[in-house]
């Protein structure tokens, strides 16, 4: 069986779910940030795969990946800044301690 679209999709699904699992079980903000990056990457793989395997005349999929990476980079920057802020204010990076929005 040749490697096709489905393989890539399954791989990305796997990566995505691992990232999700990490996101849900970890308590360290950095760790959560890393998991999010993992999930974003999983999505990007899909873009690349669609662009490659589907009949498409140009590289629109890859352009989308560029935007996605841009957004991810911005997100990391802001996310890290937020973590610093939180660390500064709460003296912790453990997400359980940060529940001011509790109803």
């Amino acid at each position, binding site marked *: 069986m040749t490697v096709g679209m*489905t393989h890539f999709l399954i*791989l990305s699904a796997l990566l995505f779910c691992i990232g999700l699992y990490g996101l849900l079980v*970890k308590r360290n903000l950095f760790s959560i940030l890393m998991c999010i990056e993992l999930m974003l990457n999983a999505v990007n793989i899909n873009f690349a795969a669609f*662009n490659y395997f589907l009949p498409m005349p140009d*590289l*629109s999929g890859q352009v989308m990946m560029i935007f996605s990476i841009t957004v991810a980079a911005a997100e990391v920057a802001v996310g890290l800044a937020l973590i610093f802020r939180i660390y500064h204010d709460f003296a912790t990076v453990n997400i359980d301690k940060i529940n001011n929005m509790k109803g």
Partner: protein
Amino acid sequence: MNDGIFTVMFYLAAIIAVTAAWGVIYCKNLVHSALFLALCFIAVAGLYALLNADFLAAVQIMVYAGTVVILIVLGIMMTRRVSMDRSNVMEKSSILGAAVVSLLLLVCLLLIFLNVSFVDSAVNDIQDTVGALAQLLLTHYVLAFEIAAVLLLSAMIGAIVLAKGADEK
């Protein structure tokens, strides 16, 4: 590209990526996780290269494996207080729930992916990807491109303001 090599390379990269991803969440030491993340990103870059996205593979390595991971590690350093040994443990109480949710999602996704029959005969085989990308970015996607630029700028400013602390003047 040869089909056989393609297959081998795919599986190789895939196994590395999944293992590294698992490593990211399995490691108890945060720094180790970060290193696994870098490995995972490199493997994904390999996948990109396989999919005729060589420019993006380079970007992936530069931005993710290079910058992002390093940034994260730096951040970890700056907020470190005690030993890194048990800095990244899983919360025991939420493992079950998280596993269920993730597996559910996985099953759903797999169900969909396995049941959709894609026609993957044609292969997008543009050689000059950098040129083609540049062409697209500056013509059809120019507005989005500019907006992305503004987004980055504002993210940068926002990050600086946030990290510096607005109330400290």
